[in-house]
């Protein structure tokens, strides 16, 4: 048991260590002091209650979208479209929320969050149907759907959904009744974090305690064997991709409800893409995704402090995030990308020449 956990955790820790080391070299090369910079980042993330709250706020969308990535990757569906699905979720929250006035608070909020998840799922369903009906690789379609989602949002916030009074390309604010409650005002820490943690627990239950979750994992790891065992692999692909879209959509909805209260063009700083890194660093396990989301949230929250105190650009955080993934993939022997099992691929190749 200890060994198995270690096998899961060690590559991630190594990757993080290697990425931090690389960044230290970069800081030194650009004339900064790595020790000061990292100290500033650390205290900027964990130095006060306020900064801790900010870490949680930054981690929240990454956690939900990271779970979205984990669910689909575990089922062998390479959903690169969490960004687009997240935007659609945010759109649902902003569009409905700015028109929904006099609902009992929690009911309205719940309804809007469900709508956000549904629109995210619907956006993912496009890619799922393209794959199942036309054999379109979901890596391509989900990436492309990200751009379409961006375009749709851009059009809506400058046109039909543009705020009534002002001249900014953004939607009206949602009704205050729909704002996600803060847990310890004035800290920005909000109920969405608990929702995200509960979702992580739910994803764990689904993947490891239910038949559907078992079938998804089996289909993801070996679709041939799963199919031959009578598992409806297509159905599991559809389910995984739509669930993934729903989780990403929820991430967008929660963010609008809790933080921005409205939708505008540059709403997401790329959460849906960072979520892929979060999912991979968390080894696609719900618990791992929680830890990875907090880590990335801390990088984000600490980066401004680092910039102020050590004069190192906060963009360095992107470098750390990216190098973590490069090292992780390099340390990892498992392939992250789909292997296509051609029906004749294994016959007569040199390695199977004997049998």
């Amino acid at each position: 048991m200890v060994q198995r956990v270690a096998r899961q955790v060690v590559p991630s820790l190594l990757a993080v260590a290697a990425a931090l080391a690389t960044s230290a070299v970069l800081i030194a090369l650009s004339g900064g002091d790595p020790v000061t910079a990292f100290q500033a980042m650390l205290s900027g993330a964990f130095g006060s209650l306020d900064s801790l709250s900010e870490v949680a706020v930054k981690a929240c969308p990454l956690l939900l979208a990271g779970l979205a990535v984990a669910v689909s990757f575990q089922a062998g569906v390479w959903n690169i479209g969490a960004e687009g699905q997240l935007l659609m979720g945010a759109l649902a929250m902003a569009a409905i929320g700015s028109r929904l006035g006099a609902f009992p608070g929690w009911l309205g909020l719940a309804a809007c969050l469900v709508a956000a998840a549904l629109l995210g799922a619907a956006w993912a369903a496009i890619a799922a149907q393209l794959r199942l009906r036309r054999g379109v690789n979901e890596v391509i379609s989900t990436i492309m759907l990200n751009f379409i989602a961006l375009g749709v949002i851009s059009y809506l916030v400058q046109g039909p959904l543009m705020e009534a009074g002002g001249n900014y390309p953004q939607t009206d604010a949602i009704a205050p009744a729909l704002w996600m409650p803060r847990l310890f005002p004035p800290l920005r820490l909000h109920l969405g974090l608990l929702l995200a943690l509960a979702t992580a627990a739910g994803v764990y239950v689904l993947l490891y305690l239910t038949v559907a979750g078992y079938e998804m994992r089996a289909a993801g790891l070996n679709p041939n064997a799963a199919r031959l065992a009578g598992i409806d692999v297509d159905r599991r692909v559809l389910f995984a991709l739509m669930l993934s879209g729903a989780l990403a959509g929820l991430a967008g909805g929660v963010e609008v409800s809790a933080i921005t209260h409205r939708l505008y063009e540059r709403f997401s700083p790329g959460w849906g893409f960072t979520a892929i890194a979060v999912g991979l660093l968390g080894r696609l396990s719900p618990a791992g995704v929680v830890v990875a989301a907090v880590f990335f949230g801390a990088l984000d929250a600490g980066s401004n402090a680092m910039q102020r105190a050590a004069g190192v650009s906060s963009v360095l955080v992107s470098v750390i995030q990216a190098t973590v993934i490069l090292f992780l993939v390099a340390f990892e022997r498992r392939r992250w990308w789909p292997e296509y099992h051609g029906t004749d691929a294994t016959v007569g190749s040199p390695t199977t020449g004997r049998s």
Partner: protein
Amino acid sequence: MLGATGASAGSIVSGMPPRLAVTGVRKRFNGVEALAGVDVEFHAGEIHAVLGENGAGKSTLMYVLGGFLSPDSGRICIDGSAVAFATPQAARAAGIGMVHQHFTLVEALTVAENLALSLLPQAEWRLDMGRVVTDATVLARRVGLELSPLDAPVAELPVGARQRLEILKALAGTPRVMILDEPTAVLTPLEVGQLFTILRELRAQGCVVIFITHKLREVVEVADRVTVMRRGRVVLTQPSTAVTESVLAEQMVGDVVPVTRRVHDPVHHEVVLRVAQLRAVDARGVEALTDLSFTVDAGEILGIAGVDGNGQRELFEILSGVRRPQHGSVEVGGQRLGEFTPRAALSAGIGHIPPDRQRDGLVLPMSVHENCLLHCGVLARFSRHGFLRRTDARHFTAELVRRYGIRMPAIDAPVRLLSGGNQQRVVVARELAQQPRVLVASNPTRGLDIAASAAVAEALVDIAQRGCAVVLISTDLDEILDLSDRIHVLSRGRLSPPLQPPVERERLGLLMGGSAG
């Protein structure tokens, strides 16, 4: 050009070293000896057939000669001087051309563009298509090959034309040795005849033609000498005029050992599986199964013998529901299978043991326990409101592990850590636990050691004795002869009339080689 035109069969020019000599070559894969010390000589101006069953090592030997694999030990000499190929390019530069069983053409490109890949020097940056056209025409005329229209996309060419293109590509380096790996597998009889003409032309020009096959008739028709391989060794090298088809068949399948056949107790005479007029077309559009019909009684083991590539895969896939036949029906206990999906087949009571357990039978990164549940029937049994009943499921696995003596580090250890024999025990245990009415087992003991093979065979006999109808599709004649109550030979998609054991191995060998028995 070296060598006299029409060099006589198997002649050894005195004082001349053989064109290609292989001495003591060994190659192991994962502890299995694929080549166990191979010695063979190939002479200029001969067509030399290499014959053997699946797994005899003939393809491995050719991969070694072609530079795709490096041998663990042994020597390869060309014209008396030792060579070692690190890459296929090195082998090609040394004058060894290969035509693979599976084509290596780029389908989206035209004939000329495919030829350019081989005809133009790699260092050149300019794509000189004019030169490709001239060179290809000269080359084709030299060996008497009919050239396809150069601007036709390869995807539109029939199989025979594609193979001629492959041969032309291999000839681009003016090879002294031409290796063809089962070149006739995809060809029509007419195309086979044309291929043989080309091979004779190459021989006339002094080339060594090495021709891998398992078809006896072709050996007699075209080869000057023949080498038979079995279990990684050369068991015979003779002029083909000095051997008969039955000798070759006997050498190919092994010594005739006294077979201990189980006594089938014919208590049941109820037809459980009825397969009628199955027709299937493979991925290339070639007919893989032609009007296949057979029945299996309860408690009977029906052996289907044959060399891979004669419709075995298609038959297994249809019975396990992965493939829909173009025509024909499958009935279990009088109920016709309505649709061809794995779930429908499993629900109808057809269990299966796939030929490649790692590809189709197991999810290697998952635990032994999780692999024991990999069956929709088992999952349904342990499902309550969509949740897995964990405790009961673990008891189930523990029982399977105990009953089949599965040896493993832990029930939660990934199944990939298990030996091949124990992996197969997991597959067999899981399938039999559902008490199928029909069990389709394809090469169930392939690659297993003696103990594991015996355990699997025992399990098949046991389930048959409990009334299951067993279809045993196998290339292993020992297995077929040991276990079957009745035997069909599947050759080129057609089923031989049923044979009642005891059957002589040579007779099976001849039927498997496509000769009328």
